[in-house]
Structures are given as structure tokens and as C-alpha cells.
């Protein structure tokens, strides 16, 4: 009777519970959106597109939320400059990967490096940006740290927008940020190798027999599948980070930095490492987020992105990796995509009429008890209303559920479960006991 199998089942139970939560949520989201698709009369291809887009967004936001959870949930580093680190990752990657000789409409030259190296470069650049921010800012209070990070993110965005860096020459290489006009991604998609695989082509052809499914759609689905795998890697990495002596020190810093220092831990070094790792992961997520777009402009990295991720993290409850993913799922399906689909569903069922041009024209008729204009106006401005709603949700969460929608977390800060004796000792003891018994 050894304890080892128990341990394994315990561990796999736990994993299953977390995985089940995520799978359950995703299933619920899919079912809801399939219903929405049915109401809207989507073609099967359109339906697949809808679900793929959802999965894509959930995967990306989950990655960033996980990275932010490392900063805030584990280490207590109040980073509200998330967008900046994502931008550094993506821009560095693009500038490294763009061909050295610009062709056609692709205005600016890059360094023409292979994509994997460019991605690595982007991730390293984001980590270094994290180092530059964290090193001096380590001693600051949380609110000052927050202000430094958001100022950094805004500086990054302004610099990528600035005309002088549109194209510049450094060490004999010419490259550029494209300024406000942005950059075109005129490099070869490294996924092409995958698309050309017979197994992929075969599968696409097979699916095409039932529903119309273009190769580009199929490629997008494959890319999203790759992202899900990357997300799993993020999760595993951060779970291991949390459940380790390293993670234990981070959590101790979050609780009381001075006490942790007095217990023999070089807290500054741990904070820098944690911050850099998180920034690197944000940089990678930034790259993966925009990778398949035709190009990028700095406006993609407005503070909104940071705001989204914070809402996702707080919904899931800071400190929990599973929560980060669940939060990202709820945020994406409920707050980010939800209102738009809701609008379409309502629009498909009833006619709200012509919206008035201004708020005044919408409100005025209310005094004559005519509510059609205001409804139509709000309906027409759902995109704006959505931001208002997000803000309200964040306030509501902070007032009522500061620990997250999912309640209190239980987190482990050790690489082994808590038990009285380690397996070996227990086994040895058991053996001794049986030997003693047999001796008698």
C-alpha cells in the first residue's frame, strides 16, 4: 500500500477539475453562440468562423491575463502598462522580420531575419523593456509603480507613432516603425509549411465535402488551434512557476516584501525576474495576437487593451491561473463580443427603426413618452455603450467581488502536496513496521 498512486490520482483529479471548469465554460460559450448563429441564420462556415474568432480572442486574452496574473496575482506588481509590453514584442518582431528590401506597397525595410528568430527577438525585447521599467521602479509603492507602467506604455505608443522613427538607419541597417501609418506585415507566414502538409490539405478537402470552407478559413482555424496549444504551454509554465519555491517567494513578496527580505530572500531579484518573465509572455501574446493581420498601427495598443485584460483578471480572481483563463473567457464572450451579437440578434428579430442623429433628438421625444428614438439611438451606439458597461462591471466587481466572480482561491505555493511524511519516509516506515512485525 504505497501512497504514490493516491498522489497521482489526487493530482490528476485536481487538474481534471480545473480543466473541466475551463472546458465547461467554453462549451457553454460555444452552445450559446451556436444558438445565436442559428437565430441569425449563419451558414455552417460562418458559424465556424464565429466560434474560431471567439476561441482566438479567448486564447489571446487568456495568455495576457495569465502573464498579468504572474505580475499582480503572484508578485503584487501593479502593472497597468500591459499594452506597452505587447507593442514592444510585436513591433520588434515585425521590424526584425520585414524584408530588408521593401517591395511594392510595403514602404519600410526591416532586417529580413527568419520569423522564429524575429519572434524570439520580440519576446526578448519585451523582457528587456520589463527590465528597464522594473529595475528602477522596484522600490515604489504599488500606485506609483502603476503610474510608471502606464506612462511607459504611453511613451512606447507615442514613440511608435512618432514621425522621426518612421524610418531610420542604425548601424548601417535601415528599418522603421512606420509611424502613425503603421507597418505592413510583408513577410512569409511560417505556418505555410503546415498548410502545405497533406494531412492539412486532406482534412480541409474532407470538411469541404460537407460545408463550404475556404483554404484561408481552414488556415485561420489551424492558427487558432496552434494558439490553444500555446495557451496550454503558458498555463503549464505559470502553474509550475506558482507551485515552486520560486513562486513561493513571489507570493511571499506579494504578502509582505520586507518580511520576506528579512527571511533571507533577495526580493528585488525575484521581482525583476517575475516582471521580466511576465513582460516576455505579454510580448509573445502581442505577437501572436496580430501576427496574421496584414499590418499594424500603434493605435492597436491604446490603454484599452490593458483595461480588457484587467477586467478579465479581476473576473477570474487575481492569483488563480485557472481563473485567468475563465475570466478571459467570460470577458470575451460576455463583454467583448456579446453586446455586438446581442445587437445583431435583436436587430434580426425586431426593427428598432431609424436611429436619431444626436442624443438630444433621442431624448427629446421621451418627454412625449415616445421611447423609440432613445432605444434606436442606444441600439445604434452599442459599441460605445459596451465600453460604459465594461467600466460599470469593473466598478461592480471591485465593490462586490474583489476576489473575483469565482470566489476565494486556493493556491498552492509548494511543489509537493502537504503531507506529514514524504513518500519515501512513509514507505520506509511501513517497511520497518512490517519487518518488525515479522520479526516478532
Amino acid at each position, binding site marked *: 500500500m504505497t501512497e504514490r498512486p493516491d498522489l497521482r490520482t489526487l493530482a490528476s483529479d485536481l487538474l481534471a477539475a480545473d480543466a473541466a471548469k475551463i472546458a465547461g465554460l467554453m462549451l457553454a460559450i460555444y452552445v450559446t453562440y451556436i444558438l445565436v448563429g442559428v437565430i441569425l441564420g449563419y451558414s455552417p462556415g460562418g458559424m465556424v468562423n464565429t466560434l474560431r474568432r471567439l476561441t482566438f480572442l479567448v486564447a489571446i486574452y487568456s495568455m495576457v491575463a495569465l502573464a498579468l496574473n504572474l505580475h499582480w496575482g503572484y508578485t503584487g506588481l501593479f502593472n497597468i502598462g500591459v499594452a506597452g509590453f505587447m507593442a514592444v514584442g510585436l513591433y520588434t518582431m515585425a521590424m526584425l522580420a520585414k524584408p530588408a528590401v521593401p517591395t511594392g506597397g510595403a514602404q519600410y525595410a526591416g532586417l529580413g531575419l527568419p520569423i522564429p528568430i524575429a519572434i524570439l527577438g520580440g519576446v526578448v525585447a519585451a523582457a528587456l523593456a520589463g527590465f528597464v521599467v522594473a529595475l528602477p521602479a522596484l522600490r515604489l509603492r504599488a500606485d506609483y509603480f502603476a503610474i510608471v507602467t502606464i506612462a511607459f506604455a504611453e511613451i512606447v505608443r507615442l514613440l511608435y507613432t512618432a514621425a522621426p522613427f518612421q524610418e531610420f538607419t542604425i548601424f548601417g541597417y535601415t528599418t522603421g516603425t512606420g509611424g502613425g501609418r503603421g507597418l505592413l506585415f510583408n513577410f512569409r507566414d511560417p505556418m505555410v509549411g503546415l498548410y502545405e502538409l497533406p494531412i492539412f490539405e486532406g482534412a480541409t478537402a474532407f470538411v469541404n465535402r460537407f460545408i463550404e470552407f475556404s483554404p484561408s478559413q481552414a488556415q485561420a482555424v489551424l492558427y487558432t488551434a496552434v494558439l490553444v496549444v500555446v495557451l496550454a504551454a503558458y498555463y503549464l509554465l505559470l502553474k509550475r512557476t506558482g507551485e515552486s*519555491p520560486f513562486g513561493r517567494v513571489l507570493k511571499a513578496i506579494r504578502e509582505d516584501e520586507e518580511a520576506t*527580505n*528579512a527571511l533571507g530572500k533577495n526580493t528585488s531579484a525575484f521581482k525583476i525576474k517575475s516582471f521580466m518573465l511576465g513582460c516576455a509572455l505579454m510580448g509573445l501574446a502581442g505577437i501572436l495576437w496580430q501576427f496574421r493581420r496584414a499590418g499594424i498601427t500603434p493605435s492597436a495598443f491604446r490603454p484599452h487593451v490593458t483595461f480588457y485584460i484587467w477586467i478579465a483578471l479581476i473576473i477570474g480572481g487575481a492569483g488563480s491561473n485557472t481563473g485567468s483563463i475563465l475570466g478571459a473567457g467570460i470577458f470575451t464572450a460576455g463583454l467583448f463580443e456579446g453586446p455586438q451579437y446581442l445587437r445583431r440578434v435583436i436587430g434580426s428579430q425586431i426593427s428598432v427603426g431609424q436611429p436619431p442623429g444626436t442624443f438630444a433628438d433621442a431624448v427629446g421625444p421621451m418627454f412625449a413618452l415616445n421611447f423609440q428614438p432613445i432605444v434606436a439611438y442606444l441600439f445604434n451606439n452599442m459599441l460605445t455603450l459596451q465600453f460604459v458597461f465594461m467600466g460599470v462591471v469593473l466598478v461592480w466587481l471591485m465593490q462586490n467581488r474583489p476576489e473575483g466572480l469565482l470566489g476565494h482561491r486556493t493556491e498552492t505555493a509548494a511543489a509537493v502536496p502537504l503531507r506529514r511524511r514524504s513518500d519515501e519516509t512513509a514507505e520506509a516506515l511501513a517497511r520497518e513496521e512490517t519487518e518488525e512485525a515479522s520479526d516478532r
Partner: protein
Amino acid sequence: MSETLAHEDESSAESERTGEGVEAVLRVEDLHKNFGGITAVDGATFGVERGSMTGLIGPNGAGKSTVFNLVTGIEDPDAGTVRFQGEDITGLRPYQVANRGLVRTFQIVRELPNLTVFENLMLPAKAQGGEALWRSVLPGFRRRVVDEERALRDRVWEVLEFFEIAHLAEEKASNLSGGQRKLLELSRALMLDPTMLMLDEPFAGVNPTLQKKLLERVEELNDEGRTFLVVEHDMDLIMNHCEHIIVMYQGRVLTEGTPADIKADEEVIEAYLGSEI
């Protein structure tokens, strides 16, 4: 390596002798600290004998807690030196001081509230390979980290049992009573296997039963050869359990000696009375 160390020990030992020719494990020399014009410590000088149980007393505002902070690196002194086991540790960061075997507890307990008692104790252990991120994460190395953690887990259980708080292992530290937290903090400090422990009012606010338990543990650890420097306001405790007492007053050492000496010292009585009027 060991030769030079031994040599250093020898030469330093010469200067680290207290009056009676016994080695001082901690030597504080002419320590000064100002806070915005207010002098908190004003030339404090004293030594703590190896293996002793030394008390540090004085009226409120005498500078005891500041001395603790200066010695353990929480604050940097304006002037003066701190030597521990012959090594100059002035101005070292708190973690460097702790890793040299000089560990403190705080006047107001600094438990890590959202971690369990068990995790609180796991934290301070020295030389944890898993504190290097890559070892904790990379597949092949993770296994070794897990093994290390198993060994550490056994040690934590031993310490928990020694302090009779094993039944609290899974509790969040924030759920503990004040006295239990004091036990937690002491046991956590012990995880660093310190040469010397500095306790800042370890018995304040602890009920008599727990106080007795705590005291027994401290004496047991003292018998093992660990040095203690204790700040405490309960005079009976100090007089009955410390073999040497240092009295601070207005940032300086007023006098020091055996409990009997201190009891008889009029200056001390005056200092205490003066502060009360």
C-alpha cells in the same frame, strides 16, 4: 578556504572579546540614526555573548526597535558598525544579514497572511534550488526540485511539531490567534537555522499558556547553543530568564550587567521612572 576562514576567526576573535574575555557573536559599535532631525539611536555600543540569552530593555522610545532595524539591515545607520561573527555586516540588506545566520522577528508579527502556516515555514529555507526559475519549470530539473521540496517538507513538519503547531499546518496564517502567530514567526525564523535570533517583544499579547510554551522552546533552542537577543517589556520575564541585560535610554546604552546588577542600578530605575512622569 577553511584555513583563511579560521585565521580570520582567530584575528577577529581577539577584538570580539567582551569584558570577561568571552566571545561576542554580535558587536555593535557607536551606532547612530536620525529620522528627520529626531535622534533615534545616539551612539549605541554593546556586545552579545555567543550562546547567551541577552535582554535588551529600556523605556519606550529608547531606540531598541531602531537598533534591531539597524542591525538587521532594515534601516541603514548614519554612522557606526555592526559586526556579526567577526564580519562587518553594516549596511548589508536584510536578506544578506538573515543568510549569515542572524534572524529577527518583528514587534508586530509579520506573518504572510494568505499563505498557510506550512507555506510560511517552507519559505525561508536556504539553498532551495527551486528558487531558480528555470529549475522549477524545466522538465528534467523539476523532478529534483520536487525531491528537494519533499526533504524540506519533512523539516517543516519537525519544526511544526517542535513548536506544537502541527495541527495548524493547513490554516491560513491570517486565521491564527496572536499568540499562535508569534509561535509561527519564531518557528519560521528557525527554518533559517540561525546562529542568533533577535526577538522583538516575543511575549507581548500572548496568553500565559502559550507564553510558557514559547519560553520553553526559546530556552531549549538556547541550550542548543543559539544566541538570543530579546526585547521585552515584562521585567519579570527578563530578570528570570536572561543572564545578561542591556539597558538603553535615549538612544544610548545606559548600562549592562546581570539581572542582579540591573535591579540594583539606580540610574536604570531613574530612567524608567523619569520616562513615566
